[in-house]
């Protein structure tokens, strides 16, 4: 719809390609809205939480390389679609500011490849692009009428608003809720917005993480939500795969970009809904 094309440097992260419908929906939404996410060539894993905990020096080289690549490839911003990538890159940016001793060391390492970290580009989550850069009117043009009957519990995960608390309130954020309302959904009030999903501990410590996930799902159910929607592949995977429904039906967990696509009138098949472990289309159909 918008004539001008919004272009960004894009860091997909490791989970993106295999995530259940994330890539399909992001691509579909971008095509409709004229957004061009230009994938960084030769990108590497950001290291996420694990790398920084185990070996900070190496972790900084991993992340520093991403900034250097983005700069060399002429981008002005780096957009991520994963909370962990988002926070990891921002953490690295803080540590690699001008004058920091780590910066010199990282550049020494990058020099072997002919790369150099000069300017730290701003890092933004894809949600910010859709909320702040796309005009609000764009979302109502082709909205199907059933959207208004669906109640969504927005789940932010813990790393989008913490520790920065500059994008939104740290414990009680509202950005994703406002985005869903702008799409036309009903965003339910609930208290599980930022409580932990277990992240990468969910598989090795499944027994301990299931109750944590159940807390999130039951809170969403208690508030009458039909869907839980999130903006991080790991959060989505944990919630999608580890719901233990003893006596209640599981709640589907589509990505926020899949819901954005629905609001634009794009059919669910083109948004990767088929890949969700807990099927969403039937749940939606029941509501409408």
């Amino acid at each position: 719809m918008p004539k001008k094309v919004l272009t960004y440097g894009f860091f997909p992260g490791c989970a993106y390609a295999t995530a259940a419908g994330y890539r399909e929906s992001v691509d579909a939404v971008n095509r409709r809205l004229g957004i061009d996410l230009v994938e960084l060539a030769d990108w590497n894993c950001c290291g996420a939480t694990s790398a920084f905990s185990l070996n900070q020096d190496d972790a900084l080289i991993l992340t520093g390389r991403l900034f250097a690549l983005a700069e060399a490839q002429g981008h002005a911003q780096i957009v991520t679609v994963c909370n962990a990538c988002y926070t990891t890159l921002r953490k690295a940016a803080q540590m690699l500011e001008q004058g920091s001793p780590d910066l010199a060391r990282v550049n020494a390492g990058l020099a072997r490849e002919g790369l150099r970290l000069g300017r730290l580009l701003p890092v933004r989550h894809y949600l910010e692009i859709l909320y702040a850069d796309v005009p609000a009117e764009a979302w109502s043009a082709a909205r199907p009428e059933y959207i208004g009957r669906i109640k969504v519990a927005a789940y932010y995960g813990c790393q989008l608003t913490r520790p920065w608390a500059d994008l939104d309130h740290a414990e009680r954020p509202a950005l994703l809720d406002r985005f869903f309302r702008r799409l036309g959904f009903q965003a339910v009030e609930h208290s599980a917005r930022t409580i932990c999903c277990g992240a990468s501990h969910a598989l090795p410590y499944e027994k301990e993480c299931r109750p944590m996930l159940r807390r999130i799902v039951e809170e969403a159910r208690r508030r009458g939500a039909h869907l839980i929607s999130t903006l991080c592949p790991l959060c989505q995977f944990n919630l999608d795969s580890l719901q233990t429904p003893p006596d209640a039906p599981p709640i589907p967990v589509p990505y926020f970009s899949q819901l954005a696509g629905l609001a634009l009138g794009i059919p669910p098949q083109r948004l990767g809904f088929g890949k969700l472990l807990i099927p969403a289309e039937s749940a939606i159909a029941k509501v409408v």
Partner: protein
Amino acid sequence: MSPASPIPRIGVYICHCGMNIAPRVDVEAVAQFARSLDHVVIARDYKFMCSNPGQEFITHDIREQRLNRVVVASCSPRMHEPTFRKACEKAGINPYYFQMANIREQVSWVTFDGQLATAKARDQVAAAVARVSFHTPLYSREVPVTKSVLVIGGGIAGMQAAITAAEAGYDVHVVEREPSIGGHMAKFDKTFPSLDCAACIMTPKMVDVGQHEKIRLHTCSEIASVEGFVGNFRIGIRHRARYVDAAACTGCGLCAEACPVVVSNRFDEGLSRRKAIYRSFPQAVPITFCIDKKDRAPCVGACPAGINVQGYVQLIGQGKYREALSLILEKLPLPGVLGRVCPHPCETVCRRAEVDQPIAICDLKRFVADQVDLESLPAPEIAERAEKVAVIGSGPAGLTVAHDLRLKGYQVTLFEAQDRLGGMLRVGIPDYRLPQGILDREIGRILRLGVEARTGVRLGPDVTLHGLKAQGFAAVFLGIGAHASLKLGIPGEENATGVVDAVRFLREVNSGGQPPVGARVAVIGGGNVAVDAARAARRLGARRVTLVYRRSAAEMPAYPEEIKGAEEEGVEFVYMAAPLRIQSQNGAACGLTCLRTQLGAADESGRRRPVPVAGSDFTIDCDTVIPAIGQRIDRSWAENEPALAWSASQLIAADARTLQTSLPFVFAGGDAVSGPATVIAAVAAGHRAAESMHRFLQELALTSAAEGPLAARPKEDQPHWLDIPPDTAPAPRQHGGVLEPGRRLSSFAEAALGLAEAQARAEASRCLNCGACCECQECVRACEVKAVNHAMTDTVEQVEVGAVVVATGFKAFDPTPLAQYGYGIFPEIYTSLEFERLNNATGPTSGKILMKDGRTPRRVAIVHCVGSRDARHRKYCSRVCCMYSMKFAHLVREKTGAEVWEFYIDIRSPGKLYEEFYNRVQEEGVHLVRGKVAEVTDIPERPEDAGRLTVVAENTLTRRTLRLPVDMVVLSVALEPAAGAEDLGKLLGLQRDRDGWFNELHVKLAPVKTATSGIFLAGCCQGPKDIPDTVAQASAAAGEAVALLAKGTVRTRAEISVIDPDLCSGCRSCLDVCPYSAIRFDEGRAVAVVNEALCQGCGSCAATCPSSSASVKHFTDRQLMEELEAILL
């Protein structure tokens, strides 16, 4: 240049300071070095120079060696300079012949290498020796002191300090900004560790302070200004208006019962409500009530006539309709009229719109005007005056002038050209909007005041301005309105039957006539007059009425209610059409040809100009055309009054403020001056003109009259209104009934039916009381001793005191930023102060621990260290929270038997009987968990816990995470410096530490003194502390103040500034920079002069002076240069 004579004979003493200097600095080598310096007669080193033997060396050597200068190299001069100066003085030399070299704080404590330290010590000594040779003798003076003490703050600290000083025989002023003394302690229930109730132990002190013959209590007061110096302070105390006379008020409380305004009770920490006139708590000292007034509510400010809108809305809400109507009548003699026709600017600014919709103020005014029989209201007493006044024109402006001037006692005669009174109200507004009966009733009341009315009298043919003057009318008001119409200026307008301008048309309708109206009517225009004409035409039987407007619907100036009524009555609206020509056949109108328009650029009214589109003609079939495009003044009489000036827009010229015309005895207002405008604007003009005329007649200056005593409140840039409570539940706006459109057209019966009584009461209860007190004067009426006085203003009193004790206390940390604790999000989360109020017998639950829904909690969690010991908020420990948290635990157990869980980091119980209290609480079965609470959430652990809160914390002793369902959570919040501490600090010149607490002079050795002589600290303002320590410190501060003043004199500083009059050029730069206002300008000699009593020797003037005529004694350029050179060379 050689030093002053006599030749210096210097003694140098190097102190070991025990283990502080000697191990690092080679003191013997330094002494040896000193001996080699010029003029040094003797040099020693000794373990403790400040001790008696040490000082003995000095005095002995001064005598035996005939020393006239002394240097001691030891600690900081802030420690011992006074000590050694005294020693010199005792031995017979001027104390200012002494210099100290700091080789401890500046050398041995900060230099790790011994050789470097010794070298630096040598430099310090050399500098001191070089300097001291150039010292001159200086003398301080004794000045008398005022034997009285100011205590700022009336909490437990302030009260104790005041009592101690008063018992010592000193006059004491206690200044407290709240209406009562007692501070925070008055809010508490039981206090630790002895569990005595705060009120029981404190009220004797409160009474003492209130009744002591030596103590003068200033409540509702603040410090406005501080001048002077130790022993001689001049303090400005601002007494804020209480609006209740303290001498008369008996504290009976009848006023509060009568007050209609309910606001949040700050003393109860917002947990309950109180009236706008109130007393903080039953044992308040003084017992006097006071009124909480914010800035006038926005509705009051928006009303052009200044009606007390909030006031009458509140009275309606109470069912006090007569009082409400009387209040309206003070500013508006035509309530029933305006309640039907006013455009209600008050509703536009009503802050209820921030919750749901504005209050239906206009409908409420109509309701109360209809409820009360005007004749039943008592007639006002009028003190007659002889002067006669003529009012020409009986529209709203004229009626208001007549009413106001009659009440002032003038003999008023109303002249009206029509045969009935009322102006446009009578002949312009149709009956279905404004029934004739309403007008008769309200005009009748004005006439009954004693106003004479002559109808059928025209200005020009029947009376003239000078003619009236000749008849003895000392002043004349012209309120002739705008009763002529603007012409369209299109072909066919003249000479065709069926074309009648709206003003004339409506006049005929309202006079009971039946103006000819065909079957198809076209009305041209978009204002109220056009809509009135259209709706009247429908009632007169026109089958089809079309209203033609040249702009779009959005730009139509007519009231939305009127447009809606017209649409319901079948009037058709044609927008974006401009009249071109009136077609006629056989001399009778048969059609209106129009052009389509487009909206172009904005004109001076801000609306977009309609631009006709050529070739877009179309014709509306009609047999009647009613142009309603605007009104103008009838000027036919003007040429006989050449002295009366007109404005460029053909309106009567009148001064904007006083409404006086070019003829001094003639005043004008309303549509004749402003052009066609609203009724309420005419009323407002009437008030202004009446006031001006009154002043004119009394030969007073005609300046803009003040509105009277109630206007005396200061206006500020940002209006201060009551905050809208976040839990205000939305409630729909009430709408009055309307006659069914079908039934409306058969007559001119009133179309709008107004509010029913239940609706009016409900609507009035939606009012938010933005201005707090609404000035309805119910309290004045209720008070049997006439103690309430709304005209009181703030006053400032100057007092002289010798010493000041600051006891401004603390405030509680607001835990809202710690969102994880849910304060302000979940209802059953309380701060410690709020919980105290729940426990206190005078609080919102009469001392019972109850949840907001009335249930008793079964399990209560108490969270320590909320805001304290927190890197992001307050780093310090607030010292009292562990103890009061345990006190809460005890109270909960005792009153409710509920389970109590306390979550702490450490338990701090250091005082007398505190540890015993901790043991007792443990024995009472309180669960104490060592672990800071991570969050309080409403996500239930198990389904049966839904509705309860869950506290999440780690029990660090068992290393398990605890998720505990509870009913109530108490947050033990940090103590912070009181609000306003920063500003008070600036007034007093007090420094604050990085947490905002006032700085004491020395944390261990001088905790109640400050760096400013004569100003002392008591209580929490210096740092968080409990009640025992506060009382002790307060007595100490009072003791210090008394000690300072007991001798009757204080010594002034000797190291003060001096200005050489021969060098001073009179530029006055120094006056601007002196922080103590110690420099004055001698006009006679054109030089600046230092006041030796005020100067504190800061040096700002010396640094600023461009001609080097200002210098500080004992810190002259010469002395400083010698010191520097000794170090550098």
